[in-house]
């Protein structure tokens, strides 16, 4: 059987959803026979591949880099999953949304520094005015809410997709 190509992406989030994914523990051993992890924080792939079957995206879209990345990922992915509250609603990264970006950066890098006060300006991407959910920029096929979503829910969806089934609409999700 041809292995299914799976990618994971970490935008503006805390990696807790990736940890929840890893919380499948030893189930990763049997899963590794069915999938190739072609891109993501756990692997060294250099470029987002052209024809990915399933991509799980953690985190809100918060910088210009994030935005460029999600557009490319959408073009190259068959099924795109918003994994966790930051990707689904903006969640904690969006707590900055009422504050002007310059004010936020000023607080951290000017008022919050003892030396070399100044906002970073070279080789760092510009922040967007607000951190926003993924679906405001690209079409999302499946949403998995939760902070983080339970491991069983994430793995359940992956297994449903591997079996060629439409993921169950009554997924066990949780608030917070």
């Amino acid at each position: 059987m041809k292995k299914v190509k799976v990618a994971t992406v970490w935008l503006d989030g805390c990696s807790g959803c990736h940890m929840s994914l890893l919380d499948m523990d030893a189930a990763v051993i049997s899963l590794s026979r069915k999938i190739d992890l072609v891109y993501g924080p756990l692997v060294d792939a250099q470029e987002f591949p052209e024809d990915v079957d399933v991509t799980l995206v953690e985190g809100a879209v918060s910088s210009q880099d994030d935005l460029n990345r999600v557009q490319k990922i959408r073009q190259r992915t068959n099924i795109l999953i918003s994994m966790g509250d930051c990707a689904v609603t903006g969640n904690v990264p969006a707590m900055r949304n009422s504050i002007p970006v310059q004010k936020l950066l000023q607080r951290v890098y000017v008022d919050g520094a003892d030396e070399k006060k100044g906002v970073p300006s070279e080789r760092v991407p510009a922040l967007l005015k607000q951190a926003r959910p993924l679906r405001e920029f690209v079409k999302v096929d499946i949403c998995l809410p939760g902070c983080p979503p339970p491991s069983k829910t994430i793995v359940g969806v992956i297994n449903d997709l591997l079996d060629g089934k439409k993921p169950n609409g009554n997924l066990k999700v949780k608030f917070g």
Partner: protein
Amino acid sequence: MKRITIEPVSRIEGHAKISIQLDDQGHVANTEFSVTQVRGFEKFTEGHPFYEMPGITARICGICPVSHLLASAKACDAIMAVRIPPVARKLRELVHFAQIVQSHALSFFYLSAPDFLLGMDSDPASRNVLGVIAGHPELAREGIELRKFGLLIVEGLAQERVHPSWIVPGGVATPLSGATRDRILSELPAAKGIAERTLQFFKGALDRYKEEIEFFGSFPTMYAGLVDVKGNVQLYDGGLRFRSATGEVVEDFVPAEEYSNYIGEASLRESYLKAPFFKPVGYPGGVYRVGPLGRLNAASQCGTPKADAEFKEFHQRFGTVAHSAFLYHYARLIEIVYALEKIEASLDDTRILDTHTRATAGVNALEGVGMIEAPRGTLIHHYKVNEEGAITWANLIVATGHNNLAIGRSVQQVSEHFIDGTKLTEGMLNRVSAVVRAYDPCLSCSTHASGLLAMQIRLLDAGGTVLDELTTD
């Protein structure tokens, strides 16, 4: 001048890029380590009730949420001016040791083992945890089990593995049940076996990494870590010790509320991660390192029998102050042994089942600082509140931040030694990433950064024209 960019650096917990400038002969002239996202917790938490801070700041990091929960709860305890019940302190320590085990296991087995087991120059397409599962199934299984053991304790105490709401200002929400204690104790011997086998394996393999030990961030710096009054490693409490590059204790037992007399922060033009420095020396000379290597260099001993034997052997091999960043891996494995010994000792104490787990109080002080040793090093949460308990100001100094200057210098050293700009290979650049991995930087913590995705390597000339590009199909 040509420039190489490694972006993002892979298999680290966050999003970073490395920029390497080459001179006309292809030698490394200059390097920069940049972290590329920021969330601004210090600003957007203003106005929130202080007791929400543990829950909000846990979301800084999904790998070590327990660290932020603990540092935050300690800052809140100070605002309430309470001494938490004895069992609450014991349970906080227990969950913290468990977190050290899971976080160190993640770093070693999931992120860095592919370099050790499959090789720095191996095929990048399979140089990852799935490649380890395929090529070294037994070791992979043990790594998964060890991480799971740590999380079994977190879940047993706090009902959730990621972002539990069990650690609260004033203590912890619920006591430990006898059944959970017995289950943890029944699985402990297996975890200890894995930790010891892995440490023996790594020590046996050290001879293969002589070049990495010599050139992976191997330079004299100061080190810092929490210790108790006897100089034992402390993870949850204690005072901060700074030890000089030549082994003298420079400052000892600095209490949490005095951190800002010793630690300053500098902004960097090319990174969203600020660079803390040792204030008495100043910036940029006041470089110090924290984390497993920082702790084992700063402390006089661990304070548990097996870990102390390992501590002694470690320093016999590499000196009173061990300076190579490659040795972070070694120190991490010793700390797993230490944490498992501490878990056993806490559970053998019957008072661990006491049921008065929480103190309650309102605002009794307008300022509070919490300081702990997170898996990656010293973590400081500092809050100011108004009479109603709303946050008016917050400062967070996270573990990876302290190492920022040292990581930058390590990238420079590895680049100078391993990179030949006339004949670039992927393996050369993987070594540059691998030295960053050795620090186990949590860039999610440090700036609340975005994901570390693919590694893109391009050689550009001064005008930005692509001269060489490395891609694997």
